[in-house]
């Protein structure tokens, strides 16, 4: 069964350092989402891509976060500089296309700890 891949699974960094997370969606999925899940909370959308275009990045802290999906396949989420409050699980999800009928499939996540 096809799965969404994410790496690394765990990342420890010091504040003010740069970190990057990678996501490889299920093959053929045009829509890709990055969510952030703070401990004890539900996931919150950071950015949504349709192919290589950003559909929604209204909740992305653009002063320090950036996301790209250059060829409309895999995606990278970057934080520079990292802050203590960025400690969280970063989840990637993909779907065939955008739409309520389309199931979002989630990867295992990258757990970030900022010291």
């Amino acid at each position: 069964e096809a799965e969404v891949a994410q790496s690394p699974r765990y990342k420890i960094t010091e504040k003010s350092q740069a970190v990057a997370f990678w996501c490889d969606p299920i093959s053929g999925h045009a829509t890709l989402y990055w969510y952030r899940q703070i401990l004890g909370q539900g996931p919150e959308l950071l950015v949504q891509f349709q192919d290589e275009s950003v559909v929604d990045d209204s909740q992305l802290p653009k002063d320090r976060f950036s996301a790209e999906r250059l060829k409309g396949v895999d995606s990278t989420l970057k934080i520079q500089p990292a802050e203590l409050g960025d400690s969280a699980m970063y989840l990637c999800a993909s779907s065939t296309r955008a739409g309520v009928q389309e199931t979002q499939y989630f990867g295992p996540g990258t757990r970030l700890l900022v010291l």
Partner: protein
Amino acid sequence: AQSVTQLDSQVPVFEEAPVELRCNYSSSVSVYLFWYVQYPNQGLQLLLKYLSGSTLVKGINGFEAEFNKSQTSFHLRKPSVHISDTAEYFCAVSGDSGYALNFGKGTSLLVTP
């Protein structure tokens, strides 16, 4: 923006007992609702979804949920739980645009022998 509220942060239950996890949504003309499960250190897995039609929705692992428009609720139920059902459960609603999901804060289900 559309939102959901999960009324219980933790639900302890004994194995083979029934369970109900409560979720209320903000009223809207059209609403699309989901339940996801998250096992420790894993991503989220879709249990079931309500888009339209029958208000009783059946999902995987023996779970079901009922869409109640008058009470703006979408409670998740299982008649007999197993130890393996211990996990975090999230109710979610499809957002107003782009179809990203707005999640509740989650309910931790703990099943004990």
